[in-house]
């Protein structure tokens, strides 16, 4: 009998087919349509920005992260998502820096995959927003020649971008500062100014549905975010239409869809419990509306998610599942 080559393992001896790299790479692959859409609207600039951000993320993960950690695919997602939430005209050196910062301080220093408390892509983006507030709020107009650059993408590292590209405000900025509405169809299709990937809501929703169907993202936070924004936004709009835009505008504008589908679902930085995910989603939704309507900034998705990230361990703490039999044990006593 061939006993020598037997292995012994602890039970269970079998395992479901899903693995962490498989989940990560599928999510990364699901971003391809979003990237394609952004290339359609913003031309080669979008691809260059995404490339630079991803390069920054991957290089940093490779240099500072654990050995072979590039294989799990999470750094790829971070880079792509960061690229997708930057304006298409931002100098590439800034996008690269954002990727490096996000992975370095948002992930590696925490111990790598699974340990970080804040969304690395958003940490990178928040850093860029704070460091270069002007560059990151310069929104080029979509459309035009595919190869025409949307800004000074090749600005010399550490130097000002100099460019004279036609800029346009984002729908949210237009509403907040000029009180100008944007047609809903433009929002849904994505033919508006804004970040590389936050424009086309419809494509992002489709990708999200696909991932939820595969079981790779938990639908609870995205759904609760969208519903909360819709309801609260609608309520405020009813109270004061001049200050708060209508609910559908709220839902389809800005980075809400990208944030809800891809960032509020990063299991590492949102609560592990399902109840906690509802709380996270509702909290994020409320913050988005509050920042957009009452805050100084036109957009609030990034900050809302980061703030809720900070609350994640606390939410986890308060939403631990009720262990089987503990309720009846209490009743018995």
């Amino acid at each position, binding site marked *: 009998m061939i006993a020598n080559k037997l292995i012994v393992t602890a039970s269970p001896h079998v395992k479901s087919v899903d693995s962490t790299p498989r989940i990560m790479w599928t999510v990364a692959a699901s971003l391809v349509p979003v990237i394609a859409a952004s290339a359609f609207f913003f031309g080669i600039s979008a691809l260059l920005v995404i490339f630079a951000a991803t390069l920054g993320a991957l290089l940093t993960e490779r240099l500072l992260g654990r050995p072979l950690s590039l294989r799990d695919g999470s750094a790829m997602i971070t880079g792509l998502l960061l690229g997708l939430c930057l304006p298409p005209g931002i100098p590439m050196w800034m996008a690269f820096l954002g990727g490096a910062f996000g992975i370095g301080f948002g992930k590696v220093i925490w111990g790598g995959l699974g340990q970080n408390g804040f969304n690395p892509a958003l940490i990178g983006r928040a850093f860029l927003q704070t460091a270069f507030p002007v560059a990151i709020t310069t929104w080029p107009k979509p459309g035009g020649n595919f190869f025409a650059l949307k800004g000074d993408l090749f600005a010399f590292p550490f130097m000002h971008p100099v460019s004279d590209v036609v800029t346009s405000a984002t729908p949210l900025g237009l509403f907040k500062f000029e009180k100008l509405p944007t047609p809903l169809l433009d929002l849904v299709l994505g033919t508006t100014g804004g970040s590389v990937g936050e424009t086309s809501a419809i494509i992002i929703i489709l990708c999200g549905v696909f991932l939820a169907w595969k079981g790779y993202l938990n639908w609870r936070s995205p759904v609760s975010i969208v519903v909360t924004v819709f309801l609260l936004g609608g309520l405020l709009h009813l109270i004061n239409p001049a200050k708060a835009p209508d609910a559908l505008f709220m839902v389809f504008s800005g980075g809400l869809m990208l944030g809800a589908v891809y960032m509020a679902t990063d299991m590492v930085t949102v609560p592990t419990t399902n109840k906690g995910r509802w709380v996270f989603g509702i909290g994020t939704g409320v913050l988005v509306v509050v920042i957009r309507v009452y805050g100084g900034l036109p957009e609030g998705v990034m900050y809302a998610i980061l703030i809720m990230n*900070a609350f994640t361990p606390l939410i986890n*703490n308060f939403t631990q599942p009720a262990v089987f039999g503990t309720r009846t044990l209490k009743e018995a006593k």
Partner: protein
Amino acid sequence: MISNLAWIFFSTLLINNFTLAMFLGLCAFFGVTTKIDTGWRLGAANTFVLVMTAVSVWFLNRFVLAEAPYLRTIAFIVVIASLVQIVEMIIKKFLPVLFRELGIYLPLITTNCAILALALFQTTRKYNLIEGIVFALGAGLGLTLALTLMASIRERLDVADIPAMAKRMGLVLIIASCMSMAFMGFAGMGSG
């Protein structure tokens, strides 16, 4: 009036959070935030002392220090220190349960610069009594929020596999940086 008080409260709580934006009370923020329970309790004790400070500082400014502004710093610190001592003794005597929960943090608070800073800000910003109390509440709850969040994140980190070089304090400061960045989302609140 209400909107003025609301602005004072929220801007102190969120936008100019004493810990995350003004760098006050960092000793406790970094030193005593390893357990959620400790975090919020210290925050609660702090809030209490802050409110008391606001009240007594208003009285001092109004009735004692009007003629001797140069004694502000020294008078404030002495009053705060005595106040904390008195409160400690009173709580210990009459509310032993509360003392066990919060009282042990009181001595820590005396040397917390947030308290003295509150007294000074309140003076330079010429807040009246009510404004002062609201200001103190905002500051105290802001501290509590920061302490609790930091503690909860650090509790989670206790089980994480942090790189050796970040173990001592490095990562904790990076977390503070991230939190501070996140709270910048509140900027401009109330101005629009």
